[in-house]
């Protein structure tokens, strides 16, 4: 960051220059910061709004967006901003839990598959193939029912169905690293297996793992919303984005556009933030682009 080559044709002058926007690396860091700020904002907003807006106030039902109710109110007079923020918070929690479980599963299975010989490799690949050939939504519904339904069903289904793609990536990374000339050379230079795992393998795998984890977030969140939208799992009064969206379907023709569009846009914004976060951290951690 200290030595940043300034492009001659930089579009950033004055204030943008002051923020370091003429430097690519600083721009990436800003984007990461803004995304993290959005997530912090969701938590802050949820704490600030409290749960008062979740109670029905029939006097103010079906209000269009205004200063008092920026996202409007629903047919029961509940504040849509509060409900949306609560829904996003729930999505964040489910997403965090699901992507943590899925990525740890992927790490364990991927490393085991590449390290413990052909039998383990065959079993893991077979599992990955099975999970990948079943349509994801069908798989989610099946697991959700098998886990007993309810909100627990949704969480289990989302958590245990997102690991196959990342498992494949980690498996191929480990296989490639184990065969890499510099890893074999390290062995001949007297490094122990443990040292090689720590110094050569881990620094390669960790960014892959973290980026995989972050990029699992949007999938998990959207699948949670999709399951809620279909009416599987969460109870109808839970403020989840999927439930808000499915409720809004009933009011689309009556012109209450804010019921669907604003929570939907908020969900899209959050998902896009995770996407930007993952992509930018990827660029920052790759030595080929890190010093640009």
């Amino acid at each position: 960051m200290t030595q940043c080559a300034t492009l001659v044709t930089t579009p950033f002058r004055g204030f943008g220059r002051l923020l370091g926007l003429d430097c690519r690396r600083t721009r990436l860091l800003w984007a990461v910061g803004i995304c993290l700020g959005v997530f912090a904002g969701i938590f802050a907003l949820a704490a600030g709004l409290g749960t008062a807006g979740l109670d029905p106030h029939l006097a103010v039902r079906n209000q269009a967006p205004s200063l008092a109710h920026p996202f409007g109110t629903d047919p029961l007079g509940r504040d849509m901003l509060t409900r949306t923020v609560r829904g996003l918070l729930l999505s964040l929690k489910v997403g965090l839990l699901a992507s943590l479980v899925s990525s740890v599963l992927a790490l364990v299975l991927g490393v085991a598959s590449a390290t413990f010989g052909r039998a383990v490799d065959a079993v893991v690949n077979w599992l990955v193939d099975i999970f990948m050939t079943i349509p994801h939504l069908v798989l989610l519904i099946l697991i959700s029912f098998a886990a007993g339904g309810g909100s627990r069903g949704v969480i289990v289904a989302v958590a245990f169905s997102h690991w196959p793609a990342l498992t494949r990536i980690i498996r191929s990374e480990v296989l490639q690293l184990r065969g890499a000339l510099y890893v074999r050379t390290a062995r001949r230079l007297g490094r122990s297996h443990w040292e090689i795992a720590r110094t050569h393998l881990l620094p390669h795998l960790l960014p892959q793992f973290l980026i995989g984890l972050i990029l699992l977030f949007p999938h998990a969140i959207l699948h949670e919303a999709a399951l809620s939208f279909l009416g599987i799992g969460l109870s109808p009064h839970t403020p989840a984005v999927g439930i808000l969206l499915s409720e809004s379907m009933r009011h689309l023709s009556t012109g209450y556009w804010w019921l669907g569009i604003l929570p939907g846009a908020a969900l899209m914004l959050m998902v896009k933030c995770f996407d930007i976060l993952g992509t930018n951290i990827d660029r920052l951690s790759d030595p080929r682009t890190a010093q640009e």
Partner: protein
Amino acid sequence: MLEAIDLGYRFGSSGPWLFQGMNIRIGPGEVVGLFGPSGLGKTTFGHLLGGYLAPAQGRVLLGGAALPVRGYCPVQCVHQHPELSVNPRWRLGRTLREAYDPPEALLDSLGIAAAWLSRYPHELSGGELQRIAVARALGPGTRYLVADEMTAMLDAITQAHIWRAVMDHCRENGVGALVISHDEALLARLCSRVIACGGVTGGMSAAVDLAGMESGEGFAGDRAQAAGSAA
């Protein structure tokens, strides 16, 4: 003494033999060349000597004992493609010091600039990376060096520069070397003995010593003589 006894290798348990019955003996401080056209298994042979691969047949002995499986291997390889033999995520200073801290004199003689050490591999050229790979392999524990097409991708001046540094190091420390190359002039220049492998039909098992390629003068030898043997 580094010995390969009746060495044979094939990929998998039923693949065709790449070579069989290879014998070679390299004494301390001796520089031996291995010459042959592409695809004969010269690189694989180097990997067997360096302990990168386990032989399918025969043994590799160092001073009468097998190569150590763990710990610093006294036989070190320098590979043909330096960009594959350094970790792309490590700054080169770390790669250089992976096994030991190379003395300034060695770095100077190889022409390694201090500024390279804070860079990543993709920011250096192949020749620069190869110098670092060479310095890394010349640790105090190295008794034999397997140089597999070590300078094939470099221009003549850089090639001469690196080989001069390596030969000086080998002479001063009694390090033996196997130089694998298909550059006859280079082998004639460097090696006291060159083993040439036959053509496509002969394979590596038809290895014979080429008396005509002996130079004995080492690197300081006459240019005209090297040119003569190449022709």
